[in-house]
């Protein structure tokens, strides 16, 4: 009788954990998608076209002339 009870208990535990795993996998997928979305955002924001537009228009920057460039060792 006791053995049967222990067996049932294990079974219930296993099912409970399986529910949790399913939930966590879903969570993982969601986070993976979020991560991917953020990576796309980074790539879009670091696009040289965008940076140059901001530098030129908003920050009024321009390219240095040859004599303004100093090379460090």
């Amino acid at each position, binding site marked *: 009788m006791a053995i049967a009870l222990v067996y049932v208990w294990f079974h219930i535990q296993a099912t409970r954990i399986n529910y949790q795993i399913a939930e966590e996998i879903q969570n993982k997928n969601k986070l993976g998608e979020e991560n991917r979305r953020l*990576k796309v955002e980074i790539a879009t924001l670091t696009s040289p076209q965008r940076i140059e537009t901001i530098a030129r228009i908003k920050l009024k920057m321009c390219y240095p002339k040859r004599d303004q460039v100093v090379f460090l060792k």
Partner: protein
Amino acid sequence: MTKKSKKWLRFRVTSVLVLFLVLYIALLSRAFQLQIVSGKELKSLADKQHTKSLTLCPERGLIFDRNGEKLAMTVLADSVYIDPSMVKKRKEVSGKLSSTLCLEERDIRKKLLKPGNFRWIARQVSPLQAAQVRALDLDGVYTIQEPKRFYPHREMACHLLGFVGCDSAGLEGLELKYDSSLKYAPQKVVWGRDAKGNRIYLDERSTTLNDGRGHNLVLTVDSKIQYIVEMNLKGAVENTGAKGGNAIVMNPKTGEILAMTSFPRFNPNAYSQYPVASRRNRAITDCFDPGSVFKPFVAAAALEEGVVSESDVINCENGSYVVGDRVIHEAQMKHHEELFFPEILKYSSNIGTVKVAEMLGKEKFYKYITKFGFGSKTGVNLPGEIGGILRDPSKWRRVDFATMAFGQGISVTAIQLITAMSAIANKGVLMKPYIVKGLVNRQGEIIEQYEPEVVRRVISEDTAERITAILTDVVGGEGGTGERARIANVSVAGKTGTSQKFDFSLGRYSSKKVVASFVGFFPSEDPQVIVLVMLDEPKIKRWGGVAAAPVFKNISERIVSCYNRHLNLPDVVAERHAPELEIVQASMSEVIPRNEDIDESLIPDFRGMSVREVLKVSQDRGIDVRLVGSGWAVDQKLAPGISAETDQPCYVLFNEGF
């Protein structure tokens, strides 16, 4: 008990027995039918009810540039579909969908009338549209997430990357060429479902179907250089009113393509909105008569064969030379009496080149230009390359041979031209151009790596150096045609070219339609970079030396500014990591004498200086400084007053709130 009642009892027992037997047999046969006859079928039906499969988004491999910058990636986009059998109010559905998705109402209605239970309405719509469709909450209208290729840099390197269709299949460029390596089969996860519909993880039934590989592609392209090239070429095409143009930047020693672009460009995120013509990678699919840029190859062949030397004087016939039934003139109707052999290239004399080619002879001329790779594909790993047009020498008339010497009557692609010029820059060895550095898997391990490939030796090292010296004079010498390609402090070797285009409507070479080009490499003593610029039909500034050479100069100057001439191109194959900087702790240091400010051999006190001042002072004194932060200097690693002649770099910490 009477005999009669006994009989009756036996009868009842027997009939009950028979009844049970019949029922038992019926039960057994039903069990047999359920378990054995249609068991498999029923099991699969039950599985369908108990389990639910979820398809994970198949992530196509990414495309990186050589520094780990992402050039192509995958995002999820919503697509809208309908189940016509579930749609009750057809008119309402078609009306609302057409206004939300900007589609023809008629088309939607047609789809609604068709039998079946699945029809696409719109694929890969914007997140806003998808949200609107969901908000409409119409019966039988659903949205589903599908992977969509996304190019964060929009038009940049569009012809190289190509694009991907709706069903994740590469259709152009590298996406097409490396489709089998990039694509990734959808991954399926099977869930169990309980009575309430909650999900249970079923380990043994989780299935993954991975026949695609989903590797990442690493290119030889440097996105910084690619950007520089595209912006400059765009400006030049607009300023000269040209129909289009190409530019390629290569490492002549290895054949790695650092940048390649064609105009007009397209946005691969919305490729269907652009005409097919603008999606063509003209640098490899279109050929043109090279014009004078071709002359160095003739000169190289002549030097290699020893038919001329630098001290030889060539009679340039004062600007008109009769070959067969034609008269050959100099460009811009110039007149040259006699020129030294190097001056033929410097002033780009047509007649001089024809004479050199005649001295060389048809067979040798043909041998060398094929050795330089003209007339055959370079084998660059991009789809759609053509081999140009080089006719068989037995079919050449005398005048054909003569015009071919100055690059008319032979058609080459931009990639052929730059590869051939690279052979001169690379001490006479022709390298195979390549654009893919390697394939890496998702864990960053290298799956395949492409190495520089030598094709053949075309000319000797000595000849290559002599031609390079002549080409350096074309740009650097007084009155050379390539003057406008000069860069301060860097010696450039190069050649301009202007060629007439063949007008198919007139059946002869057009005097108005030209191709202006420039190919050059630098620094000429140890070539690191070779650049080709070609403008198709410029309307203003129609000469290569005026239209294309300044573009070369702008591109090269920016490359030099970015890389300090020594293009120490990193061999990064994995994703980029942030550079590690040693942060110097800001602390108050003891009071020190200020004599180091006067004594040039000592480390000065940088504190309070701007970045610019620190750079200037350290350059004057030859100190190896490393800058951390921005603003004003607040601390330095090497104490002021110690000797500047040390191997250690001096870290200087800057702070904006000083």
